[in-house]
């Protein structure tokens, strides 16, 4: 009896493996097609973003697939990772520290005093005095903090507003920020999770939606920290610059040998080095997540997901595990966020939109197969690929459909103009169709 069962499950495993292999080979073929028909450089650009998307969807899969936690604030955690890239890698602006450093220090001290007093009041006082006193401490503390904070940040923002106007960063290597970005996101996730886990599942969704909007609002408006909508550009790179490559004699000889233009080859080399770095991170994360998923910890997580009551009756700390997995998943999203800013070489708070950073990642996880790490990676690759290629395809489709209309008919012009919005509808449709007809995704969990 047990023998037949193991054979069946082995066969099952094998067929799943072939299925995965087939899907990934198909994907490789599509990249080759892009490289052949469009350009190698474009294929690599898509590949780099695919790798980052795969890491993000891996993070979301840990939350949704392992534990059934709804994180509708992926955008916020990715943006926190992005800030880390700025704060770690940019050189510090000495002048700004000189004018605003002491003010910020006083702000921090005032903040700590307020928090300590508030905690003292909360734990030491008895009922009738507690609430009013707590309220008074928070209000007075708030105004004292503001009185230090406002002049300091005002002064910082006045230092060369056109080129800096912010504190700058620490001037450390940008790859370090990938870890720090993960920590930032983990911290925010811990706070949100502490408040909203253990309540109804929808509350986590709404709370994460809220925190992500607030994080973006802070990044857009706190110019002293992130330059706000003025953006931080020219972040240092972890890989060599094209210009430097082009000057090396070996390189020129190589380009001549291969008969490729010098400029194109250098951009391909840069993109390949990024892809290598990202692939290393992705492989490490897959190894870790697969290990975790097949460990006793992973079995416990799935047991909790499938039946919370039963798991709790077995003595598992459901809320604690949920918090743990929520923090871990967000940390991975934060890492991916920092990597994305590294790849772009600039930090633009206004580029963070929920559609691109939250819901697209959801589509990736659902389409790929929630609960399966390889599935979410496949989803990340496929969906990003189509996200990029959907616009030309949609344009082509509309052009074809409206070819019967006159060249300058207003309907045709409007439709062609709106083709970009087809993406949103397509993504919505894909999500709904997969959820309905193949709810376990392309690569299902076993």
């Amino acid at each position, binding site marked *: 009896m047990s023998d037949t069962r193991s054979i069946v499950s082995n066969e099952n495993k094998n067929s799943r493996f072939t299925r995965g292999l087939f899907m990934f080979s198909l994907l490789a073929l599509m990249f080759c097609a892009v490289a052949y028909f469009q350009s190698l450089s474009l294929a690599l650009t898509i590949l780099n973003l695919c790798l980052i998307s795969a890491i993000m969807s891996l993070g979301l899969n840990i939350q949704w697939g392992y534990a059934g936690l*709804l994180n509708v604030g992926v955008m916020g955690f990715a943006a926190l990772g992005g800030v880390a890239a700025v704060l770690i890698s940019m050189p510090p602006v000495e002048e700004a520290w000189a004018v605003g450093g002491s003010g910020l220090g006083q702000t921090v001290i005032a903040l700590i005093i307020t928090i300590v007093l508030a905690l003292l009041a909360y734990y030491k006082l008895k009922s009738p005095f507690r609430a009013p006193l707590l309220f008074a401490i928070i209000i007075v503390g708030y105004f004292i903090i503001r009185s230090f904070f406002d002049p300091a940040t005002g002064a910082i923002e006045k230092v060369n507003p056109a080129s800096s106007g912010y504190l700058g960063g620490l001037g450390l290597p940008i790859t370090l920020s990938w870890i720090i970005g993960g920590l930032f996101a983990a911290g925010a996730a811990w706070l949100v999770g502490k*408040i909203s886990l253990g309540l109804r599942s929808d509350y986590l969704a*709404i709370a994460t939606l809220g925190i992500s909007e607030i994080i973006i609002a802070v990044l857009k408006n706190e110019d002293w920290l992130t330059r706000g909508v003025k953006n931080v550009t020219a972040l240092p790179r972890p890989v060599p610059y094209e210009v430097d490559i082009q000057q090396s004699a070996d390189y020129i000889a190589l380009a001549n040998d291969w008969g490729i233009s010098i400029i194109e080859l250098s951009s391909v080399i840069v993109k390949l080095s990024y892809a290598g770095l990202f692939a290393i991170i992705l492989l490490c994360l897959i190894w870790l997540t697969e290990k975790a998923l097949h460990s006793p910890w992973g079995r416990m997580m799935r047991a909790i997901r499938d039946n919370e009551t039963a798991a709790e009756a077995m003595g598992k700390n459901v809320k604690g595990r949920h918090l743990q997995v929520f923090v871990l998943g967000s940390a991975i999203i934060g890492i991916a966020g920092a990597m994305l800013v590294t790849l772009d070489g600039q930090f633009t708070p206004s580029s963070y939109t929920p*559609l691109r950073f939250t819901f697209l990642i959801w589509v990736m996880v659902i389409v790929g197969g929630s609960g399966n790490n390889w599935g979410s990676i496949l989803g990340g690759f496929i969906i990003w690929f189509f996200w990029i290629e959907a616009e030309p395809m949609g344009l082509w489709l509309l052009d074809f459909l409206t070819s019967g209309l006159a060249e300058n008919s207003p309907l045709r012009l409007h439709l062609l103009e709106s083709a970009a919005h087809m993406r949103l509808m397509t993504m919505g449709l894909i999500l709904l169709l997969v959820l*309905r007809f193949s709810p376990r995704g392309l690569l299902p969990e076993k």
Partner: protein
Amino acid sequence: MDFLNSITLLGNFIIVPGLVYGSQLALGALGVTLIYGILRFSNFAHGETMAVGSMVTILATWGLQSLGVSISPLPTALLALPIGIIAAILLCLTTDKIVYRFYRRQRAAPVTLLIASLGVMFFYSGLTRFVVGPGDINFFDGTRFIIRAREFKQMTGLDEGLAIKTTHGITIIITLIIVAALFYFLNRTKTGKSMRAYSDNRDLALLSGINPDRVVLIVWIITAILATIAGTLYGLDKSFKPFTFLQLLLPIFAAAIVGGIGNPLGAITGGFVIAFSEISITYAYRKFLTYNLPESWEPDGLVQLLSTDYKFAVSFVILVVVLLVRPTGIFRGQSV
């Protein structure tokens, strides 16, 4: 006199805008709370339903305007509203039939329905942008003000003016009518009572012979009406921008949860709580204090608790406090 001036100031910048914004949020939150109460899931597509309903209203308004129809001094959009409502009802019913009904039959977990509503949200927001584009649309016509600030000053002899826009009046009156009609429906009619029974205890309601399909049909019709009216009023008051409806989702959900999700009275209270907190915390009190304090105490800064860029933070903080202190909300909504 200074005191009266300062009160007028608050009236103009906090009370009137608060009542208007609160009404809009209340209408939105009512839709969310009804869906939650009857269908048991958080409908993330609600904001986009508002957008689609008001988009059709806008298209109908343009049509009426080009025909030369006008009900000046009222905006033409009011005349076009029924068309928007019908479109939204059709859209909601079709969506329910294609998407949600399947999961309801399966008795799927609320989370699955929530994710389906995310997909619907995507689709609707694409639809809105596809038809009218992502830009800003101002479709208000008719008389702008009921009372202008200048007229108010002349009338009362105060230094501060109180301006009431036509949209303010329309918003508050329509909200009153809709809310009264909704409560009459829920509390006095047989269908309404059967809906409340279904919301309280689904199995018991089914045993009593209540037709679940009918309840679901009616809740979508009511939600579509509420969403279209809320969206159109918001668009008339500010302007119609497709992306604002996603941002409205947070205050709307906060309002529904603060009041107690699943409870219509709670949704209305929650709407006003959120609106007044948002506006009074982001208002700069400098002028108000200048009127009321002796000259030597006059404040230097704006005396603004929080910049208006962070108004989302207000609804979020209220939400967090409610979740920590009383997760069921003010009026004890469903705690399942």
